[in-house]
């Protein structure tokens, strides 16, 4: 199964389970969880089911395209089921069968792995799903988000698409994946990994990044005070978070500064969460 078919099958499967199929969010994020479709939708009592692919950028994980398993940007398929149905684990297992994994012939274990995102004031309880020793999914029952206890507990499934595709295609390097029948993952993405690694580690203008971070932070504060557009305020939070990651990969964040910047971003995220639940 090629990479894009894997995505199609998973989306189709979750569409059948009543999920709205969203498109990737168009602001840089470190994980699918950070998209408003997760971060904001899990707040409040409203039931929601959504699935989307989210390219997730982690500047410090870049390896100039050298490492067969580590990427600056990888693709997550993110599923939110709110509230988590009683048979959520079975639904998840069936999604693996839907992409052709015979679970009677493969070893699957749910191993304790609780998830926490300090910059988002979010944490949950769950597992990493291990398939023949490979971590393919993070499975989380959200408990708190934006510093708020969740009245309705959602299940979040985060599939690591490259890893699953490498498993299905039995290749050792993500770059050898078939994206479709003509194109390899290397052909599609290698330059991006290489060039963004250069940018993230060497070229990014630290002073410019810092100034931009301050600008976005100020904009977020202004929007939070104004209160009319929490969604727009949240975009500024995502910008801040990504700029922080860039500064970090440039080695520009000192020990003492690190905790302080995380606290700044977290305060913004908590502010947005509060504004979001307050809106009529």
């Amino acid at each position, binding site marked *: 199964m090629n990479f894009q078919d894997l995505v199609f099958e998973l989306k189709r499967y979750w569409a059948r389970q009543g999920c709205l199929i969203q498109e990737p969010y168009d602001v840089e994020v470190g994980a699918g969880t950070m998209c408003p479709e997760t971060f904001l939708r899990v707040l409040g009592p409203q039931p929601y089911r959504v699935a989307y692919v989210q390219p997730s950028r982690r500047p410090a994980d870049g390896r100039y395209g050298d*490492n067969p*398993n580590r990427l600056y940007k990888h693709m997550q398929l993110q599923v939110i089921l709110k509230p*988590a149905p009683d048979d959520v684990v079975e639904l998840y297992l069936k999604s693996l069968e839907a992409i052709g994994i015979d679970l009677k012939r493969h070893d699957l274990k749910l191993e*304790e792995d609780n998830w926490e995102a300090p910059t988002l004031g979010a944490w949950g309880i769950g597992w990493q799903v291990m398939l*023949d*020793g*490979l971590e393919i999914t993070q499975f989380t*029952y959200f408990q708190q988000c934006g510093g708020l206890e969740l009245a*309705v507990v959602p299940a979040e499934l985060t599939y690591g698409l490259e890893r699953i595709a490498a498993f299905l295609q039995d290749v050792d390097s993500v770059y050898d994946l078939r994206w479709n029948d003509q194109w390899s993952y290397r052909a599609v993405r290698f330059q991006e990994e290489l060039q963004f690694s250069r940018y993230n580690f060497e070229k990014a203008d630290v002073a410019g990044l810092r100034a931009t971070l301050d600008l976005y932070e100020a904009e977020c504060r202004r929007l939070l005070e104004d209160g009319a557009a929490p969604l727009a305020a949240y975009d500024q939070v995502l910008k801040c978070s990504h700029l922080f990651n860039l500064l970090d990969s440039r080695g520009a964040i000192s020990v003492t500064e690190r905790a302080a910047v995380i606290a700044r971003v977290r305060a913004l995220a908590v502010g947005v969460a509060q504004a979001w639940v307050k809106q009529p």
Partner: protein
Amino acid sequence: MKARDFLLEVGVEEIPDRMIGAALEDSRRLFLEVFPGIEVETHATPRRLVLAVRQIPVKEPDRREVVTGPPVSAGENAAAGFARKMGVEVGQLKRAKTPKGEYYSYKRKVKGRRTPDVLSENLPKIILGIAWPKAMTWAGGSGPRFIRPIRWLVALYGGKVVPFEIAGVKSDRYSYGHRRLAAERRIRVADFESLREGLRRNFVLLDREERRRRILETAQPARVRPNEALLDALINLTEYPTAIAGRFDSEFLSLPEEVLVTVMQHHQKYFSVEDEAGRLAPQFVAVMNIDADPDGAVRHGHERVLRARFNDARFFWETDQKRPLAARVDDLRQVSFHAKLGSYYEKTQRNMERVKQLGGSAAAVRAAELAKCDLTTELVKEFTELEGVVGGLYARAQGEPEAVWGAIYDHHEPVPRTVEGQIVALADRLDTLEGFFRLGLMPTGSKDPFALRRAAFGVVRILVEGRHAFAIPPELREFVLERARHYFREVRGHRYDEVNAVLAAGWDSLTDAADRLEAVSQVRPTDNFEPLAASFKRIRNILRQANWDSDAAAQPDDLEPGPERELYDAAQNVSQRTRGVGYREALEGIASLRPRVDLFFDKVLVMSPDEHLRRNRLAFLSQMLREFSTIAEFSEIVIPGES
């Protein structure tokens, strides 16, 4: 009374393996609080906690219960009201005298409740009373908290369902087999045997011993390196375990074994395998949660994952070497030790200074300088459990002498193997302890976020087992003393009164205290020891009652001839004979004084009316006590039968 068996199965989504044992203990304890003295058998897999209880009587025994009513002083109306409540006449009430005055009371008969009712009422409390390290809610904020969502409940008393409900799940008689291999959609259960057999038909081995045997048997014939903790985890991670052997490319054997084994055991939960000569073999054993791997697909998958992990490790190993440890000392400024205690660079400087103060060699100072540098390596960022070890391996690869790399390698071990390692570890732990104590962040109760108890315990072990005579800094003495007591009692197995006796005699050097303790333990069973300890205690009491706190020397010539003078001479003799001998002989010498001490107390009145005689006698006893209490404070020895 008739009695019936009870069965409880709590069906849960996958419980973290490390928590299962404690949860079973907890549930047993909670159950016994409601049904004391009953025989409870517990079982678990990742997806179920099971209590199999033998023979609970069908109802509680009837009992009588005294109900205290209003005070007599409250008058007749109150008495009538109380009688009405009890369903009797006022005349049938009794009066009871209490320290608070006289009260009406009535002894009423309470009928024992039916066991199913007691179970219905208590099962939710028992189940939800299990304490978990990190619980969750799944039914919303007001719902119950448990380790993972509860999905089914089997509760059968004498084969009948005991009704109760938790978060919308009603108790019933249906269980569920293996998530992927179960043949039946659900399993109808009548009792524990039918549960166990039903589960077996559906690929769940309920008995952990059976799962253990199956892992060990299916792992044959690979020469698996034993790892009990890993085996335990795998037993708790599987319902139907089957071991399979896989291989990796032998070229990875050029990486340090420590790294390979960590990847296999800690990250992948594989057993490592050795060849006939006991060397690490390019193989591993994984444990699946299914019955077989007929086409090798699972083995192939595990081999692929391990190859990727080893490739990563090799990449880190090679990249890290491009920048030697010595060049990384400055990078430690970027690694925070604690916000108020500065960076690891500052800690390193302090550690080096302290190693010098402790008389460490140049190699030890060098080791302290490089010991923390591995915190900046990719390999330690990836394998944090190899902190120290990785630094040692890099130091060796970069040509540091063995005294240096060995000390770095070992310095996180409880007791490093070399003197250099011990001194570096000691300096590091003392610095940590002093730093956090200065900030007032010492452990309280069960909270010890900076693992200071472990650090202090490590200090004790290094001092004693490495035979170092360093004194503990004054501000840490009390804290370390507590760990030392624990160490001597729990690790060395000494009796608590011996530990008290020896430590009360001083412990400027813990290794010396350990030697004295060893001697006391050896001499204690001899005939004279405990009686002499009793006599020393008597001397101490006499001195206390006489308010004697002088350390004036006795005038030998003024001692009375006979038992007193003889004791004095014998004591002088022992004191001279035991000078410079081992603690054991010294103690035996002191113990040999016992007949003379007994005779002295038999014949001599200490508190003589003659003041000069009395004072001289007290001075003599005090002097003897002081002189012979340097090994142990004998009065701390607890003698059986003594009140």
